[in-house]
């Protein structure tokens, strides 16, 4: 057991928590939080696991950096979409049925 491994295992737990949140929560912003937490978990595994044996490894660190930027891009886009969706429909989750089809699919 080394420090990186501890964090990798913590990452696994965060993944589990995030996954459950992503599936179970209904509010879209909460889902987004869950996504970010799960992402953090994945990143911890990604860095922790290789560093368990070989010490600090810049490659996964660079990958995680890329991953974080992708995640923030996705999160920001999701926020835009969610806010606009909320503005138009008054709903903050996907479970309720939308209002009667008022908009043309084309």
């Amino acid at each position, binding site marked *: 057991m080394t*420090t990186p491994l501890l964090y990798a295992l*913590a990452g696994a737990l965060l993944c589990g928590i995030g996954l459950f949140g992503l599936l179970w929560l209904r509010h879209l912003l909460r889902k987004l939080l869950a996504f970010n*937490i799960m992402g*953090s978990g994945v990143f911890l595994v990604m860095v922790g696991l290789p560093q368990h044996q070989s010490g600090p490894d810049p490659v996964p660190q660079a990958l995680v*950096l890329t991953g974080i930027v992708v995640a923030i891009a996705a999160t920001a886009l999701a926020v835009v979409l969610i806010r606009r969706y909320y503005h138009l429909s*008054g709903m903050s989750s996907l479970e309720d049925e939308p209002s009667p089809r008022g908009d043309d699919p084309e």
Partner: protein
Amino acid sequence: MVEWLLDGLLVLALLVTAVAALWSTNLFRAVVVFMAFGVLMAVAWVRLHAPDIALAEAAIGAGLTGVLLLDAVSHLGSHSLEVQKQRGDRQ
């Protein structure tokens, strides 16, 4: 030994904040806890000898994402009743 304790506490704090961020009743508080989670993550990255990620996490995870979500929460929270009423009027 102290290091282990520190790491153990940090991991515990991470897990607790994660759970709290997802299941706190108040959305605003959830986002604030999430920002705290981001800060803890940054510390964790330092512990993993990844200062680059720590910086990025502090700036992005704790800062930017948090602000973005806070802004969204305030919008969704404050307008919700009003918008629903408006829609009701219109229909």
